[in-house]
């Protein structure tokens, strides 16, 4: 099953233009894996937008509840993935969060990542599934 990243989590918003596409992922892939690093990125996206700590906590709680209700498993960040991310950061132009998410997908069983971000294509280690 594919890994879902930050874009998917943001698309769970009712008014997001990719909202229907995100929900359709649950039909196509009944048990996708939620990437822990994506939750970390979402937290910092919110903080960089000036959201207060309570708003960030509430958002993460609701975001976690949605996959849990659908039996979506969580793919945790491991020390091996941190090593991979460190390697990617030194070799490619990507953010820390990109590198962690990529490492997460690289170590997943199917090596598939649900994302529209073409940054992941240049590395060539995972198959990207677009949110259409």
């Amino acid at each position, binding site marked *: 099953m594919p890994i879902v990243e*930050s*874009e998917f989590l*943001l698309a*769970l*918003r*009712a*008014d*997001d233009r990719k*909202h229907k596409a995100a929900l359709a992922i649950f039909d196509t892939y009944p048990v996708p894996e939620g990437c822990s690093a994506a939750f970390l*990125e*979402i937290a*910092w*996206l*919110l*903080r*960089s*937008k000036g*959201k207060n700590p*309570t*708003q960030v*906590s*509430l*958002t993460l*709680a*609701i*975001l976690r*509840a*949605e996959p849990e209700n659908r039996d979506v498993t969580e793919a945790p960040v491991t020390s091996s993935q941190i090593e991979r991310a460190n390697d990617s950061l030194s070799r490619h132009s990507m*953010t*820390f*969060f*990109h590198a962690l998410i990529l490492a997460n997908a690289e170590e997943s069983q199917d090596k598939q990542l649900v994302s529209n*971000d073409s*940054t992941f294509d240049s590395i060539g280690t995972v198959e990207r599934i677009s949110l259409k």
Partner: protein
Amino acid sequence: MSSVTRIRPRYVITLPRSLRERGRIKVGDNVVWMPISDSELLAVILPADRYQVLADLMSGVELSREARLAAERAFYSEAAKKAKH
């Protein structure tokens, strides 16, 4: 006004009427429990439509390259601040 509710088997509780009415709480709403200390919890009541709740909580957030870089800068900046203390 505070009120006391006993925790029943399977940890079921009933929200007191006064709180339900004051907060206009409806069946189906979401409750987010946030631990404050060993004996204190903050319960935040949110509307039933989680997707709309997420839209409200994450309004104005986008995932452009610039936004991702800004998130990374905020993360590193906070880490640097913590490291100084």
